[in-house]
């Protein structure tokens, strides 16, 4: 006697088909990106015949070329420097702020939270004009510092929120206990609180790093007008306008994606709860 009725089997089949279609829809483009990055010219210019699903002669030439290119490394290191500085500045500002928001109630708290949400929801494509104008006037245009400040503005509201949530999970008793033993506030903060919320702070730092690493709009407006500094996203965009072979574009794209993918899966759990709770509050 069977214990699964026919409806049930039908439902499972429908589910499996939907999932498979979705997975193909997600994996296929990514596969194609990687395939293009290791394609040889004969795989891309087929003269009307179908493009092969696997390169005729897979080659890592483009990657090797990029890795030997000084400009490419300059661009990568610029992106890395900007992202690192943004992480530092964001952490410096967000950790104390998150602590205060988690622990104290004060008259202007609501006001500050509204400010956070407003900054977060304000369209970046709208705020980029005044900010670029300001940096031009301040003679900081085409400098690391301008991009770092702008990226910090983008990451800060969300990371403050993450830090607040993390500190809220630390029971107040622990702090009071430490105070009774005789530790002062700075010691409590650096020796007890920060280690306890460390995973969340790391998640916030990774989020910030990736945001800066990927960012295009501010980098474009602040650096692309006659300056010397270029980031990886700008480099990819510049290459797009030269219409180089597709494998070059794909290879740069892969380089741009690798850290993002690695980190995203490392912090997926934090990001998930963060995205969700951040969205609800």
């Amino acid at each position, binding site marked *: 006697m069977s214990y699964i009725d026919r409806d049930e089997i039908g439902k499972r089949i429908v589910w499996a088909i939907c999932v498979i279609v979705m997975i193909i829809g997600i994996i296929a483009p990514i596969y*194609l990106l990687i395939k293009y990055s290791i394609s040889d010219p004969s795989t891309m210019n087929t003269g009307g015949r179908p493009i092969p699903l696997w390169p005729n002669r897979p080659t890592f030439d483009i990657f090797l070329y990029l890795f030997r290119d000084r400009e490419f490394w300059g661009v990568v290191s610029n992106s890395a420097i900007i992202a690192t500085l943004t992480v530092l500045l964001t952490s410096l500002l967000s950790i104390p702020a998150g602590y205060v928001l988690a622990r104290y109630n004060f008259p202007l708290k609501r006001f500050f939270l509204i*400010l956070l949400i*407003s900054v977060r929801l304000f369209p970046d494509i709208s705020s980029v*004009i005044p900010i670029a*104008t300001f940096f031009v006037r301040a003679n900081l245009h085409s400098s690391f510092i301008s991009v770092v400040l702008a990226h910090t503005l983008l990451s800060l509201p969300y990371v403050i929120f993450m830090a607040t949530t993390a500190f809220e999970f630390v029971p107040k008793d622990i702090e009071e206990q430490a105070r009774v033993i005789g530790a002062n506030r700075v010691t409590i903060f650096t020796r007890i609180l920060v280690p306890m919320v460390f995973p969340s702070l790391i998640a916030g730092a990774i989020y910030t790093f990736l945001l800066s690493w990927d960012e295009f709009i501010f980098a474009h407006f602040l650096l692309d007008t006659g300056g010397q500094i270029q980031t990886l996203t700008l480099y*990819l965009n510049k290459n797009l306008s030269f219409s180089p072979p597709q494998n070059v*574009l*794909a290879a740069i794209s892969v380089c741009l994606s690798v850290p993002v993918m690695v980190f*995203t899966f490392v912090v997926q759990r934090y990001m998930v709860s963060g995205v969700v709770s951040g969205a609800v509050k």
Partner: protein
Amino acid sequence: MGEIWPLFPAAIFLSFFFLLVLIELFTISLTKTNVFPTLEPAVEILKNGEFHNALLNTLAFVAIGTPLELFAGLFAALLVYNSYWGKSFVRTIFVIPFAFPGLVIATLLFILFDSQGGFANHLFQGQYWLFPKIIDHDVAWRGSKYLALSVSMLGKVWRDMPISMLIILSGLNSIEPELIDAAKTMGAGFRVRLQRIILPLIFPAMTTVLLLRSVEMWKEFIFPYILAGNYPLLGTLIEKLYGFGSDPGEAAVVALVLVGLTILTLVVIVEITGRIKRVLVNSGVNSK
């Protein structure tokens, strides 16, 4: 008050830039070649046909893209939620698009939807196993407004679907499983459970998705910038006016319009979903 000083650096930083953005945005929008104040940029832009086009295109982009993302996210979330097998595996796969920078996906679509010899053309001409033939000749995907913006939207929805999915999934996971069981014992099949129990209970999560995603859609820049350069949305128009046109005044006016429309959309969505919610809760009460 002495206790909250650690908040000050962040507060000062944020308020400084927020005020700067607001004040400068208004100032620039009222400035034309060093004359201030003047309404000339606003008047100019309102007469500009490109602006009208961009406005309509963006409106369509938001009106179609936001629900599309909601449904894509809802569909994916339901598939994960009702997993018969490998729930966390399916979820992880579905989150992958979010791990790619928008610029990368836009570049990938740029490659795939090339007008000559692009993979999409080959695929849609039925040159591969199993895929039906849809078109006869190569299509210039970036050469028509509808196609270019559709491809942009495809990229946007594909990449951002995981965010919608995760928000809805957290709504689904907060439904007590016994509620679903109870509905089953009362005779509710899958469709009734979906309509009468699951959807009403994840309504707040869906509202959140609509709010967040509509903002994202209004300000979308990267996909249309790469894939639909000739058919600007408001976001790409701002870049064009500021850069090529060297007309920061008009760019600032468009930026303000964008902010205004975003806020308006949020208000409208809150209002409409509030009404729907009231109807949902009250449904059946009226029948004495």
